[in-house]
């Protein structure tokens, strides 16, 4: 499978996650979201940017609790919970947000 953005083709896995993490650009992320009928707002980008920063440091997506706390610190306590994140990413912050951020899909019993 693949996704086309601005005339360039990027390889993805069966579920639309980027095969090569270095292929990611904000445009690719936005195109992936658009394919799911999701328009990325500033609120979405806060999450996506945090995921990318965390991944850069730890080579893994953050735990949901780490993510909610970080978002809470940045955007206010009322947003530091998974309900808020699920509003932004209805398929689950861990999976859907990781996809748009160009991160691999979390695997395991999650």
């Amino acid at each position: 499978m693949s996704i086309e953005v601005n005339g360039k083709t990027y390889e993805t896995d069966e579920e639309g996650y980027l095969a090569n993490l270095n292929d990611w650009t904000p445009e690719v992320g936005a195109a992936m979201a658009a394919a799911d009928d999701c328009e990325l707002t500033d609120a979405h980008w806060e999450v996506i940017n945090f995921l990318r920063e965390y991944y850069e440091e730890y080579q893994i997506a953050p735990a949901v609790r780490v993510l909610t706390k970080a978002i809470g610190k940045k955007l206010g306590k009322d947003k530091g919970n998974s309900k808020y994140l699920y509003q932004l990413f209805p398929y689950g912050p861990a999976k859907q947000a990781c996809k748009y951020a160009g991160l691999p899909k979390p695997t395991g019993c999650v």
Partner: protein
Amino acid sequence: MADFEVPELKEHIEIPELQEGAMAHSQPFVSKEQWQQPLGYPGELVENWEQAALDKMGDLLGKYRSFQVFLDACVKCGACTDKCHYFLGTADPKNMPVARQDLLRKVYRRYFTFAGKYFPKLVGAVDLNKEVLDEWYSYFHQCSQCRRCSVFCPYGIDTAEISMAAREILDAVGVGQKYCNEIIHKAQTLGNNLGLPQPALKDTLLDLEEEVEEDIGVPVRYPLDEKGADVLLITPSADFFAEPHIDGLIGYGKVFHQLGISWTMSSFASEAANFGMFIGSYENMQRLALRIRKAALELGVKRIVFGECGHAWRVAYSFLNTLAGPFDFLDPNYPVPQHICEVTWDAIQKGQLKLDPSANDHLNVTFHDSCNVARGSRMGNEPGGQFKIPRAILKSVVNNYHDMPRETICESTFCCGGGGGLLTDDLMELRVKGALPRMEALKHVHDNYGVDHLVAICAICKSQFTKVMPYYGFEMDSILSLHQLVGDALVFDQHD
């Protein structure tokens, strides 16, 4: 919300009208060479796959006496036909346990029995061809190896073992399942199913310590890789990552803290789950189990305790000693291994934990028995301990508790619908439909007693319910970890 029809919840579990081929399209993503090879399997369907499959079947028949008995013993009495949650949820007759077994049995008869070799039509024996292989791939990934059917089989035929054998044959010819095999590879190389490296684990646990202290004012620790600790806690990596799992982990820490037990987790063996069992691979199961032994030796612990994880507890309770023993270096005064529920219940009985169940008065709960704990293991010293102990703990920490109907709990418990290596998004239709009987039982106690939360002790169950409950009108957060409730009810001694 879904591109399939979500079954309607009925008052009682009903046997559906048959829909031939209703789930014939369901199959998970196929594994790739990068995950097949390290596990010892070919990267794609091998050229002489028919012979390779029969060779593997012959190998398993020679190794596992039970496998041959199960293939020989069925008398088609029909007792199992309405016992599978996937059959009840999908109405596909091939999801009747006997029909699922027959997919393998008909090939076994053709090549391994006298009657099948010479009079195949008389005994329902068929040649192995690609169509049969594809059907194996589809329908042996519609069995969560929950073993409910085996409870009702007068011969004790265990469909789980047949499905494990089928998956091993599939792997041997190069057709593995992506979800399981990618995960096994990760756990064997990085230490856990998620692929959490040590620094990420460390960071997450430090964060947790901060959070708990902020929350309750008690410096509860969540130690990692600390040599000389008494207890090594082996817990599913979902406990570090997902919700409501992490609340369970918080609870274990509170219990250890209150009991003054020195404990640690290991980054090398940071996974309780053992997906080697799901694919029927003794070798891969053993490789994962040996990581636990190695970690225990290196950290110099005296006890091994398992966190809330269903099939992990089956592997631990039933197979760990064979796979990775002897554990003669551990303290013989404690069971090897021990379940966190045994630790907690033991302490409650001795009066070592002060509990205030009114802390959970905003909840009205019921308990979901996880298949592998219920039918593949035990807890404590008496039969049925695996049913009694979690309930006894729960009743000590809540005031509002009601069991679901008897035919849906304890040894007759219904699978959450996501066990056995099926907890993957590419099987969502199966997962949602397979949850039907459990959701109906939950609805029953919801409608009759106002139960609003389901409590479980398995990482797969927790993730599965979070995902599928909304399809049936329940909130995604109506599933809780048992040890979250323990932790919330715990009244801490005011030391110094």
